[in-house]
């Protein structure tokens, strides 16, 4: 007879399932302004407390408080709000386009707009982001990336810059510092570290920004990225977007129970922050802090952005099957657009009237872009790239066996 009870397997569960309420106390939300801001040359081990708390700037009244207030120019914040609004409108419109069968698939970033849109402001031209499929804000916050180009990718039409080879949302915009998106999760995280190492090898001044979701941190490439970034002190920002959900799987199943994703960074010897991802000012400040570290040869920074995936995982997903329908309304960190708007109105840099006006302008811009993109056709009406584009770019030059196969494909063999 054993003196112990039999062993039991622990399988984490979210507190909220359809028909009940989520208990968000697991988030460990700190009060705005209460978390310290250390100098950028702080030792990684000294960021332990910052990896277990939550850096926030905007308080309940939308006032900017505490040492992480980036003291940003209101003009910059107005641009940021506009970028978030543009991202959300673009998403809404493309979600509808999918429902109308104009595109085959789509993924929104509803509720996560602040992270990409504010982070983009901390980067310089030439820095390279290694995004997942949910950082469209990096592109939509820029004026030099055309929404028409993005939509043509979504439509896989003759104007698609990646020639109809990729699923919608898998953009590639090298000139905008946006690395080609892969369907294979986490692969880009270590690639970003390699890119940053290359920049250091060449004594360049550019930095890399790596992106991953909470669920994908369980992939091996998350760990290789942290190890390599630490070993070689790579100039990279390692962004973990913790939106609480990996499709239907609560972040506790990814290893988030009773710990944080930021804590992983500290364990690997990387300075780490845990930040309110729905607080535009906090995102901007933390991103600038991490970018400054990277640019100053002080090494990598890991940032866990705490946010909530307000929408469905994708157009192929129905979240009401696994979580409460009103979950986002109850999420304690709110809506990033509402919060920045509130702040700008507080400081007299925005108004309801301007908000409506910008909203209408952006809706018109997105609609116009969609109209133009639709002129180039889509997958569904057969206006797709020519057959040779299927065989090109497999190799730099088309080898004989692919030339043969192209001829066969043309002949319908």
């Amino acid at each position, binding site marked *: 007879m054993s003196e112990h009870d039999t062993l039991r397997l622990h399988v984490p569960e979210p507190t909220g399932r359809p028909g009940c309420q989520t208990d968000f106390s697991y988030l460990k939300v700190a009060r705005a302004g209460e978390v310290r801001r250390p100098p950028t040359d702080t030792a990684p081990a000294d960021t332990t407390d910052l990896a277990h708390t939550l850096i926030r700037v905007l308080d309940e009244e939308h006032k900017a408080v505490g040492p992480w207030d980036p003291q940003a120019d209101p003009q910059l914040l107005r641009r940021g709000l506009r970028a978030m609004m543009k991202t959300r409108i673009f998403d809404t419109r493309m979600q509808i386009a999918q429902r109308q069968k104009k595109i085959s698939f789509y993924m929104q970033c509803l509720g996560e707009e602040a992270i990409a849109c504010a982070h983009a402001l901390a980067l310089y031209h030439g820095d*390279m982001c*290694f995004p997942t499929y949910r950082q469209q804000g990096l592109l939509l916050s820029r004026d030099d990336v055309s929404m028409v180009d993005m939509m043509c990718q979504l439509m896989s039409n003759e104007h698609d*810059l*990646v*020639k109809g*080879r*990729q699923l919608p949302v*898998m953009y*590639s*915009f*090298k000139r905008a510092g946006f*690395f*080609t998106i*892969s*369907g*294979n999760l986490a*692969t880009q995280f*270590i*690639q*970003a*570290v*390699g*890119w*940053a*190492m*290359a*920049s*250091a*090898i*060449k004594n360049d001044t550019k930095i*890399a920004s790596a992106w991953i979701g909470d669920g994908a941190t369980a992939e*091996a*490439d998350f760990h*290789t*990225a942290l*190890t*390599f970034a630490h*070993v070689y002190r790579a100039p990279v920002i390692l962004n973990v977007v913790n939106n609480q959900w990996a499709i239907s799987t609560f972040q506790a199943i990814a290893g988030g129970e009773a710990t944080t994703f930021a804590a992983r960074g500290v364990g690997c010897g990387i300075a780490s922050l845990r930040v309110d991802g729905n607080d535009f000012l906090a995102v901007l400040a933390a991103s600038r802090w991490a970018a400054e570290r990277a640019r100053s040869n002080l090494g990598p920074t890991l940032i866990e952005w705490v946010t909530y995936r307000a929408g469905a995982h994708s157009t192929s997903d129905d979240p009401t099957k696994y979580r409460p329908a009103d979950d986002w309304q109850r999420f304690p960190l709110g809506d990033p657009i509402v919060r920045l708007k509130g702040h700008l109105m507080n400081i007299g840099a925005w108004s309801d009237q301007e908000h409506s006006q910008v909203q209408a302008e952006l809706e018109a811009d997105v609609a116009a872009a969609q109209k133009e993109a639709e002129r180039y056709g889509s997958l569904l009406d057969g206006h797709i790239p020519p057959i040779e584009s299927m065989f090109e*770019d*497999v*190799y*730099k030059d088309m*080898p*004989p*066996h692919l030339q043969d196969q192209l001829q066969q494909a043309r002949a319908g063999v």
Partner: protein
Amino acid sequence: MTMIQALRSAMDVMMERDPNVVIFGQDVGYFGGVFRCTEGLQAKYGKSRVFDAPISEGGIVGAAVGMAAYGLRPVVEIQFADYFYPASDQIVSEAARLRYRSAGDFTAPLTIRMPCGGGIYGGQTHSQSPEALFTHVCGIRTVMPSNPVDAKGLLIASIENDDPVIFLEPKRLYNGPFDGHHDRPIVPWSKHALGEVPEGYYSLPLDSAAVFRPGKDLTVLAYGTMVWVCEAAAQETGIDAEIIDLRTLWPLDLHTIVESVKKTGRCVVVHEATRTSGFGAELVSLVQEHCFYHLEAPIERVAGWDTPYPHALEWAYFPGPERVGQAFKRAMED
């Protein structure tokens, strides 16, 4: 030069010529590699261009893909081909597809060196020949030299090539040719013409096979160590085999293969790797498609057995000259 020295010379030449070439992998820096292939390179080019890596194959290849996307030309080493599996996702899903999925926006001009092959009592995880796992992947090139002269020329060409290259090095051939007669003393490369490797830069094309031994009775398709085993088998059976050293497995030199089989009318495919779905199956299929009316006998295939690579039964597993010779005879009988 030995094959080790030839490979090191190729890397030295390319480090000198192209400041974007960087080398890293497990033990390749200070120590110069467990097989000495990178000896002295860190001292010559510095730690920012030749450096040791953590034991993480996925990390090594993944970081190399990122470096290549930046514009470098990484040459990375996986210590044994048997250990590339953790890097499979980065090789198949990323390196091989980067150019295609981004329509040329990003490319991955990297070379992944891995010592492969058996015949060294390496047991299960120091003997494998995983080439078929690479030749099946569209977007990468798979190369395997059989001698020092080719090793240097092909490695230089691989590093210069803008496509990702899997460069498989038969470690049994590192110090001298090996014909499968494990009971005889090894002859070093210094006693062989193919050990006379030119100093400086030269490259060999990545789409060209070599007629290793001209012959008229039958065509043998082989690569790596098996080229030497096949030569011994030809000598011992007296069959005038035309041995083609494929050198580049995929994309391959179909023309040389087809011309030879059309001439001889018979074909034997030989590799160390396990038989089922091995690269030999693709070779058999190509010969059948392109030479059907010229074939006078079924295509023979000699390969490793469909088992993991054993330790004690090394020589019952390794396709030696006796087994290969029997296949030659069968091919001649029909």
